[in-house]
């Protein structure tokens, strides 16, 4: 369970010709374009690695993709056009940030659903706790009765007498 074992696999495959992620010869002269290319690179997956972005990866494929991204950026593509271009070529697999669609709806909505479910469960729990407390005689934290409960109590007491 050596964490990051995947990286080892990835590195083991490509380290024979060690390289750095982004190499000096790839960098664009225009800093604004380069910054955009870097930002895009962080969202794209090196497909022969495990969950590594092409910005981080040493793999030759990642280098090819980085060059491709820079080519598109220089050609005047917008960020989304670059992403569309790469998705058309390599499929959704290349996107580290999955797009919201029918297949990923559950993925994106599950955290919110769990949070909502948790809140609902909690509200139910607290309500039930309160009613259990009202039912228990002399619970350990005496709480004032609500108006409704007092009315009901009065009715019961009156009825008894």
């Amino acid at each position, binding site marked *: 369970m050596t964490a990051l074992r995947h990286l*080892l696999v990835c590195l083991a495959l490509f380290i024979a010709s060690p390289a750095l992620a982004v190499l000096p010869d790839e960098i664009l002269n225009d800093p604004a374009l380069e910054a955009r290319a870097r930002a895009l690179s962080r969202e794209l997956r090196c497909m022969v690695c495990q969950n590594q972005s092409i910005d981080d990866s040493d793999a030759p494929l990642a280098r090819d993709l980085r060059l491709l991204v820079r080519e598109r950026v220089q050609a005047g593509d917008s960020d989304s056009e670059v992403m569309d271009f790469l998705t058309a070529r390599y499929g959704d697999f290349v996107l580290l940030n999955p797009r919201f669609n029918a297949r990923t709806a559950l993925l994106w909505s599950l955290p919110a659903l769990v949070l909502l479910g948790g809140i609902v469960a909690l509200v139910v729990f607290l309500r039930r706790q309160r009613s259990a407390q009202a039912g228990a005689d002399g619970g350990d934290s005496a709480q004032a009765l609500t108006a409704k409960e007092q009315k009901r109590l009065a009715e019961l007491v009156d009825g008894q007498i």
Partner: protein
Amino acid sequence: MIAEIGHYALVLALALALIQGSVPVVGARLRDPALMGVADIAAFAQFAFVAVAFAALTVLYVSSDFSVVNVFENSHSAKPLIYKITGVWGNHEGSMLLWVLILSVFGALVAFFGSNLPATLRANVLGVQSWIAAAFYLFILATSNPFARLPQAPFEGRDLNPILQDVGLAVHPPLLYLGYVGFSISFSFAVAALIEGKIDAAWARWVRPWTLAAWMFLTLGIAMGSYWAYYELGWGGWWFWDPVENASLMPWIAGTALLHSAVVMEKRNALKVWTVLLSILAFSLSLLGTFLVRSGVLTSVHTFATDPTRGVFILAILVLFIGGSLALYAWRAPLLKQGGIFAPISREGALVFNNLLLTTALATVFVGTLYPLALESLTGEKISVGAPFFNATFGPLFVPLLLAVPFGPLLAWKRGDLLGAAQRLMVAFAAGLVAIAVTFAIIRGGPVLAPFAIGLAVYVMVGALVDLVERIQLFRQPVGISLRRARGLPRSVFGTALAHFGLGVSLLGIIGESSYNAEQILAMKPGQTVSVRDYDVTFDGVVSRQGPNYRELVAKFVVRQDGEIVGTLDPSKRSFTARGMATSEAALLTRGFSQLYISLGDPGTDGAIAVRLYHKPLVLLIWIGTLIMVLGGALSLSDRRLRVGAPKPAKKSALQPAE
């Protein structure tokens, strides 16, 4: 011979585990002390036999016995002794052996320290513990035997992957396993409680120290792995939201939630059903992590399908234990009576809020990690879920959680005063606001939200100390009185304050590194100087060196600040002869909590070398913060009430006055 002894010891351990898993449990049902007593002896003996097996494999590695497949594939006679030893768990078979070794250590510890446990609970806990052990002994013996021999012993081994030849990675798996496997204790306690159908505050008091210890080891293990990735992988990343990392993060989140809910159960006898569920979840997620990493399912669903023996075996263990315990839970949990009642605004309420957000965070990591696998095996479609997804979903959950952290210890049990707590936290709010203003004033650039995040971190740090300062009446009383009050405080109060303070420290480091990182990527020639932030780094030249089992090319850099030399950086590139592999060793220069980080790329034909140079502000705080958290855990663990043990209801008959 040594290999056969090791193998045989493992078989005996399995036999013992089967006895320990059945006899004491039957004994607990029949209330037979003799049958229940088997558990202790069996637990000690199991530990002894697994230790023999582990020692045997270690001896094989140290003596470079290449007639054993595992040693041949993962060792080399020229490897330094320390990596021969750590190589024992640097591979699948050996790491599984380490897993069961730690499991048996925990079993023996429960037997040793459990003298104050009720006899039936102890017998059941050790029994359940043994079921887990038996499953994993079977797994090792059936699919991953580390003692298998080669018909003809080769002359030399294939060496350990050079990336694993590192002290950081040598201690990373044992720490991680101590955490993973440590959660098996709370799992066994939970299942035992479900079997008995009885659970009380004393149960939580027994479980909490084990959970705390496991949590501490897991925290250290994750931090160590992250620091290793940071300096070894060469691009200065320290967390990648990778499935393997997520596999260790999930039990950590569940364990953190469990620590907090167990407090409620111990103090107020409430949240029983939930605490038991979390105990089951924490260990189930540890098992899931083992499955994800060990089955090869992460590399590709297809690798898993082509060589499924190991994966299917672990999957079976997973289904058996998770499914079994959850079924038992569904059946028996309704028997557990609910205890202490509390208002939404109270210490309990704050801890429940913590659990709600942590559980959601856990679900986020869970779905993000497993969704691509599920989608691919169901529809064949491949998608990726990476860092951008987790940053977008996980991050926002932590903002309310961090805001709430200082409130927790300030709220009273049963019913708290939110406004009062907020007033007492004024200092922390003010400190946070000052931090935001100062950051805006002195730092140019960086993301717009970063100063606010720094403010949040400072608020958490100061807020963590408010409770402590108030309790010892620092600044209000003379120092002597404050010190005396401090000595009188339970250590768990210091533990909580420190752990929460450490959380803020880590957060500060994370923001510093991720928002204000500066980098230079270029090809440098000897004599050339490059600036990053206010440091000037000059490349002096390269020299070659011969290591024990590698050759390396070392580049020398001199770092100056305002013309003064402040240090040197010697990054290197190593080539390991046995595997024909190369690694790039980064060099770090620590300045305060910040670091200069340099790593090498390929040398060019003209004498230039590709260089990546970073200035990483406050980066060390990430790991210092986790160490503070662990220290907080240790303080809490040394608290008197945990050493003394749980209160036992006095026997009624003994109290009857003789008449």
